[in-house]
């Protein structure tokens, strides 16, 4: 019952946003419903509700381990959104606010979906709901980015549907009763038709991997993140990608039960390492700091998938990394949005000396950069260390070496860009624009708090979260 509230509360907010008559007060719905959602999610984190064994939706251990992070990120973005939409008051915000709350509802549904078809429908709907957000700026480039997002994302969606059909056929061929909940599929286990399971796995990995933005299916990401407002980028990078990751985890558990876990791990390792390497190379080449965030996101998706390939310990580390990624990405995207607005440009050829124009955002941006490149004591350092340890424990020394190399090059790429933007003497044109953009509390506090949470998560990982991650990794890899 409570798990359905997580879906219906933001849905109600979305409907209310559509009906709300006043432009000025409508953005307030974001923090109100986002806050209610976060309260609910954390209440359920501390006091998990009983789970119906064959329910289609449920706050199961995996949802419990991931969804509160998404909720927290959304709340941060929601608070920021109030100030952001006030600054951008020249654009109507009805669709924007309604879509954001709709996405929260669909993300809650997607994380809790325990049925193959339902999982696909919710993740697909979440993709569609992000479309109006992407072209909020209304520029031709924004429309171009939206078009690419639809075309590539749509193909990914289609492939994951085909993969879901194949998994359904694997169950059907193996004499299944037509019950396509994940619990039933796992229970059927070795009874599933193996060739179909393998075909399904490849399609699902490519399909949902497109949504996560794993290389080489990442090409929509820099365009979309570059053109969309920072708040949308944060929700895409920390929330929408997470739901695709949990989808992959759920299907992987079925593949494991069917006895093909080895193949699943190998493919995930390969695609994860490839994503990290490609992201590191692109980070070294790009000159645009919003596209930089997209490549950094590709890198972190690679880390998640590598973690998930390394057995139970690795999944634990990956779930930890979901939290660190959501919180740090939120802070980084929001502070980058502040800098972008003040500078009026996005490449290091046009922007420099932002520490003089927007000192607070620049400081946050630098701190966020250190967090995201896994400098201690922020949470990503500890979660990536766990992934690394899992790699050594399971005897994947080469993986660990490539992983470290990827991290190192990403660090070079990110520091190069960030300091080029922050350091130096501000340009005159940028300076005159900067006077107009005041760094109000509304646009500084949300990224600051998200970053503070990332710090706290690293220094003192709460026991309840550790328990939640343990429960989720046991759900995905049950003891033999």
């Amino acid at each position, binding site marked *: 019952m409570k798990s359905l509230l997580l879906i219906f509360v933001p849905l109600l907010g979305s409907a209310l946003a559509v009906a709300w008559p006043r432009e000025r007060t409508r953005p307030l719905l974001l923090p109100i419903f986002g806050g209610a959602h976060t309260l609910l999610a954390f209440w359920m984190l501390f006091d998990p509700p009983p789970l119906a064994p064959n329910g289609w939706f449920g706050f199961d251990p995996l949802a419990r381990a991931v969804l509160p992070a998404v909720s927290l990120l959304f709340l941060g973005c929601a608070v920021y959104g109030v100030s952001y939409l006030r600054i951008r008051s020249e654009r109507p915000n009805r669709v924007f606010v309604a879509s954001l709350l709709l996405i929260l509802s669909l993300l809650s549904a997607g994380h809790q979906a325990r049925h193959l078809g339902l999982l696909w429908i919710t993740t*697909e709907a979440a993709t569609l709901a992000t479309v109006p957000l992407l072209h909020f700026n209304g520029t*031709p480039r924004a429309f171009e980015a939206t078009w690419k997002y639809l075309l590539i994302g749509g193909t990914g969606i289609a492939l994951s549907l085909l993969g879901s059909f194949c998994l359904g056929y694997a169950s059907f061929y193996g004499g299944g009763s037509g019950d396509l909940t994940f619990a039933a599929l796992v229970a059927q286990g070795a009874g599933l038709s193996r060739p179909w399971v393998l075909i399904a796995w490849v399609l699902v990995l490519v399909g949902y991997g497109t949504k996560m933005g794993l290389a080489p299916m990442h090409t929509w990401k820099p365009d979309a993140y570059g053109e969309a407002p920072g708040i949308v980028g944060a929700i895409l990078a920390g929330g929408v990608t997470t739901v695709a990751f949990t989808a992959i985890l759920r299907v992987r558990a079925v593949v494991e039960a069917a006895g093909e876990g080895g193949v699943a791990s190998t493919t995930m390792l390969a695609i994860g390492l490839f994503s990290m390497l490609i992201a590191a190379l692109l980070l070294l080449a790009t000159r645009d700091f919003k596209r930089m965030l997209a490549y950094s996101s590709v890198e972190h998706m690679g880390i998640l998938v590598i973690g998930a390939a390394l057995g139970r310990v690795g999944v634990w580390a990956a779930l930890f990394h979901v939290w660190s990624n959501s919180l740090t990405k939120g802070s980084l995207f929001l502070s980058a949005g502040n800098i972008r607005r003040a500078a009026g*440009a996005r490449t290091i050829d046009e922007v420099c000396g932002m520490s003089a124009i927007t000192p607070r955002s620049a400081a946050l941006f630098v701190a966020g950069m250190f967090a995201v490149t896994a400098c201690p004591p922020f949470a990503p350092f500890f979660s990536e260390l766990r992934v690394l340890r899992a790699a050594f424990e399971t005897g994947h020394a080469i993986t660990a070496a490539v992983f470290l190399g990827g991290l190192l090059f990403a660090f070079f790429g990110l520091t190069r860009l960030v300091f080029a933007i922050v350091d130096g003497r501000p340009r005159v044109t940028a300076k005159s624009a900067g006077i107009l953009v005041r760094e109000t509390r509304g646009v500084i506090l949300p990224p600051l708090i998200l970053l503070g949470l990332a710090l706290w998560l690293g220094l003192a990982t709460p026991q309840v979260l550790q328990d939640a991650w343990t429960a989720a990794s046991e759900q995905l890899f049950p003891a033999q």
Partner: protein
Amino acid sequence: MSEAVNFLIGLAMGLNLLALGSGRLPSVIRTVATQGMVLGLLPLFLESRFNWFVALLAFLTVSVKGFVIPTLLRRAMRSANIEREIEPFIGFVPSLLLGALGTIAAISCVRALPLLPEHAGTLFVPGALASIFTGFILLVGRVKAISQVCGYLILENGIYLFGMLLIHSTPLLVESGILLDLTVGIFVIGIIVDRIQRAFDSLDTRKLTVLRE
């Protein structure tokens, strides 16, 4: 029963090749619409008895794929003032040859896949694979947005065809195929919005480009 089904799927496979070989956008749109209608009728032949739910599904599919989407596409085509696909990445003859090869490969590789006896003699899986492959050729090989949407529709028709294998066991998944159709609807709306934007806000956008360059 099985002959009628195979005939319809075979027809859809032929339409794949027609879509690949044609350079005029109106005829590609017509081909895709016909294919959508042919496949939309398929569920009616799969049921031994008349079933209201299946009939409704077929009606919806035929009307969306055969009429609604083609109308939207034609409107977008007219407002953008394009009639032909010019200079595609993959030429018409090469893409036709690729499509033919893909169809042959789909038919021959199906023997390697484990299929239930009731599906082994049908063209469901080869038809699905061939359509998916055709869709990809169009998506990758064409430059005009409308041709790419047509490619996406053919890809989606292939997946829909595959979903027919599960129609008796999981109606929910088939329903989700319909939702995929909605994607296409939004897709198309996206283009139209884009065109309208360019038509009405041209002055504004030019100014924005100047600021960015």
